[in-house]
């Protein structure tokens, strides 16, 4: 029997089963026990994060988290990464990343209302990085626009370390009434599991385990393991699923993502303490002659499974016909906690559920404090500040990103009050008393210098983005993008970053309600490994009010809130012009939490006409951006640095 899973896993499984697992069974373990699905290098550390809070209706563990906005109106939020597929085919990789996170929100019963896209690329003066950048943005644009969900905020960060291995993170927010919330956990033995959406083909085979394999093997050798997205079918599946949920016939619902039908159906059953029997012959196929392995593990997009009472199967079939989408009764939930698959009249897979789902022993990785961090070259004395500022303003990390968000229909669903390009997106829903503010991103250079402090500062950065529009943060999601966890220094970065994430969240008293971990982000072709990138998504709420814009108007005076410290390391200035002096790396200070609260209160009193959070490029860039529409005069006296 050929072995396609690591030796130590094979031995554990063989002992538990008391027999050799066949190839299809090994395929199930290969995917469900992968880093991507089982979080084997990270689950222990992630448990240290604060996930409780009085607004948390559903915390981590489901496809997405549910937070109370006001009364019975709740927000559903999730964050995913689609890094590896986006290296192989940037357009489809990014597009299917959007599709996946939108379906995670949908299966909780919510209508998706907004997206955020934190993106990280290599320097775009290299043609391959420019190609990846252009097509990732085009993929998100075409997919998001077609399904009618606006991208209202994002981030675009460029650094040599992302050459050949772009990071594509996506955050989605949905809205649902509390009594309409659906879980992904199976409820009743004897209920049927129906598959709706696209037909199944040989897309993305080995997607989950592919994501956990570093991209050393050149992509061409892989069979087309890329998943192609069809936003039109996604739109149909959104409307069909919401209609079925409105009619109250959906007992549980789950999106088919990594590990395909095997992943989703086993997790749905295991979540409810049940087993499941799958009928592979009933899966609607796009191609003829798919093997059991392919049917179970292919990652064709735009597919959902829904638990339905037997008497409601016909009603769901009728909805699928109305929306011209594929439909099949592919399984039944069982009392006996086993994962059984029948195909062509014989039982092909028969596994204990607790072994398959949640049975993967975590890796205990060793961590060693990082000693190597390459700083930009040292430079001599600087005289001409005018040219320096122009040079920093034209750096892709600082330049205005309208070339990107012009391609996103950020006005669809008619809620977008503050448009992209400012500190955060703000949504105004006529049926809600509060407005919703959205911010995302992190500063990978600060995290690389000191993972604990840098990650903690990303929490501060996002909450001050919210504060300038008077919004108070209510939940955090994250995407922890790191290199190879088997490298002890990389794992030290990861461990310190998770510690900083937890402490940062506790400092501002906001729960971390969900997220995703993506390892093995490195590229053999470019010999690069990504900077540690703990990308944060943050949701805030504010009362309905006229919010200060980012742009100054004539005759206004400018007030700088917060002290300025000698923390130039990791700055865009040093990146553009070389290290000038023995400065320090930025670190967290409790005074930041206080000043953010004060700014929020002042803004809510309505006495502020424009406000902006200083980040990359500091004061100079901040003022230039604010003065885009009128110009500004700034005098800095050496002693008191007032403006």
């Amino acid at each position, binding site marked *: 029997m050929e072995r396609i899973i690591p030796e130590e896993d094979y031995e554990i499984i063989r002992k538990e089963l008391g027999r050799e697992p066949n190839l299809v069974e090994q395929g199930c373990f290969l995917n469900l026990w992968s880093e991507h699905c089982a979080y084997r290098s990270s689950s222990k550390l992630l448990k240290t994060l604060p996930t409780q809070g009085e607004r948390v209706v559903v915390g981590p563990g489901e496809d997405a988290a549910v937070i109370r906005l006001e009364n019975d109106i709740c927000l559903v939020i999730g964050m995913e990464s689609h890094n590896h597929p986006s290296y*192989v*085919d940037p357009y489809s990789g990014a597009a299917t990343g959007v599709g996946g996170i939108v379906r995670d929100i949908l299966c909780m019963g919510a209508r998706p209302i907004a997206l955020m896209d934190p993106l990280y690329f290599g320097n775009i003066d290299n043609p391959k990085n420019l190609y990846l950048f252009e097509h990732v943005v085009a993929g998100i644009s075409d997919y998001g626009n077609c399904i009618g969900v606006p991208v209202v905020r994002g981030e675009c960060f460029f650094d040599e370390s992302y050459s050949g291995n772009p990071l594509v993170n996506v955050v989605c927010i949905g809205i649902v009434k509390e009594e309409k919330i659906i879980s992904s956990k199976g409820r009743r033995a004897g209920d049927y599991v129906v598959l709706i959406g696209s037909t199944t083909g040989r897309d993305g085979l080995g997607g989950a385990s592919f994501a956990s394999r570093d991209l050393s093997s050149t992509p*061409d050798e892989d*069979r*087309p393991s890329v998943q*192609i*997205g069809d936003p*039109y079918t996604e739109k149909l599946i959104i409307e069909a699923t919401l209609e079925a949920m409105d009619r109250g016939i959906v007992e549980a619902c789950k999106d088919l993502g990594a590990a395909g039908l095997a992943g989703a159906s086993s997790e749905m059953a295991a979540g409810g303490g049940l087993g499941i029997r799958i009928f592979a012959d009933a899966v609607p196929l796009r191609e003829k002659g798919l093997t059991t392995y392919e049917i179970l593990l292919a990652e064709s997009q735009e597919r959902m499974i829904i638990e339905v009472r037997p008497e409601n199967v016909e009603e769901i079939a009728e909805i699928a016909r109305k929306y011209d989408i594929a439909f099949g009764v592919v399984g039944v939930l069982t009392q006996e906690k086993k994962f059984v698959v029948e195909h062509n009249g014989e039982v092909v897979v028969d596994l204990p559920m607790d072994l398959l789902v949640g049975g993967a022993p975590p890796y205990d990785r060793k961590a060693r404090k990082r000693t190597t961090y390459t700083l930009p070259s040292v430079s001599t004395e600087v005289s001409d500040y005018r040219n320096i500022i122009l040079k920093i303003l034209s750096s892709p990390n600082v330049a205005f990103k309208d070339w990107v968000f012009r391609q996103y229909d950020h006005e669809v669903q008619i809620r977008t009050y503050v448009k992209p390009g400012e500190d955060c997106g703000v949504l105004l829903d006529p049926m809600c008393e509060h407005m919703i503010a959205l911010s995302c991103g992190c500063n990978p250079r600060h995290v690389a210098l000191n993972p604990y402090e840098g990650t903690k500062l990303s929490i501060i950065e996002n909450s001050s983005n919210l504060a300038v529009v008077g919004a108070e943060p209510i939940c955090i999601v994250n995407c922890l993008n790191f290199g190879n966890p088997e490298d002890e220094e990389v794992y030290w970065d990861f461990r310190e970053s998770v510690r900083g994430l937890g402490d940062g969240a506790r400092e501002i008293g906001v729960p971390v309600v969900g997220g995703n971990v993506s390892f093995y982000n490195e590229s053999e072709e470019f010999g690069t490994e990504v900077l540690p990138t703990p990308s944060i998504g943050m949701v805030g709420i504010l009362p309905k009010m006229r919010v200060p814009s980012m742009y100054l108007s004539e005759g206004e005076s400018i007030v700088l809130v917060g002290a300025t410290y000698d923390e130039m390391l990791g700055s865009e200035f040093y990146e553009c012009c070389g290290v000038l002096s023995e400065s320090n790396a930025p670190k967290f200070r409790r005074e930041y939490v206080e000043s953010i609260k004060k700014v929020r209160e002042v803004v809510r009193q309505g006495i502020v006409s424009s406000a902006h959070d200083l980040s990359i490029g500091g004061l100079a860039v901040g003022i230039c951006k604010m003065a885009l529409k009128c110009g500004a005069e700034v005098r800095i006296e050496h002693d008191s640095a007032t403006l």
Partner: protein
Amino acid sequence: MRYLADVTIKLKKGVRDPEGMTITRALRNLGFSVEEVSSAKKYYVLFEAEDDEEAENKIEEMCRKLLSNPIIHDYSYTLEVKG
């Protein structure tokens, strides 16, 4: 010399073609008995090259570097001299 390349970029076999599937359904709704439709892109490239051999290498490189994505596309082309 001037060369005209007639380039066709097709999806590889087995790679999903949502556009082709949607057009198939549309033609059937109009009453045509269509079994399958697959879509492809075509580019007519007018360019300079020393001789046939260089023209061949040039168009080959254009297809691999920009016009197609080798992961999901197959490409083919015909070349003719345009004087």
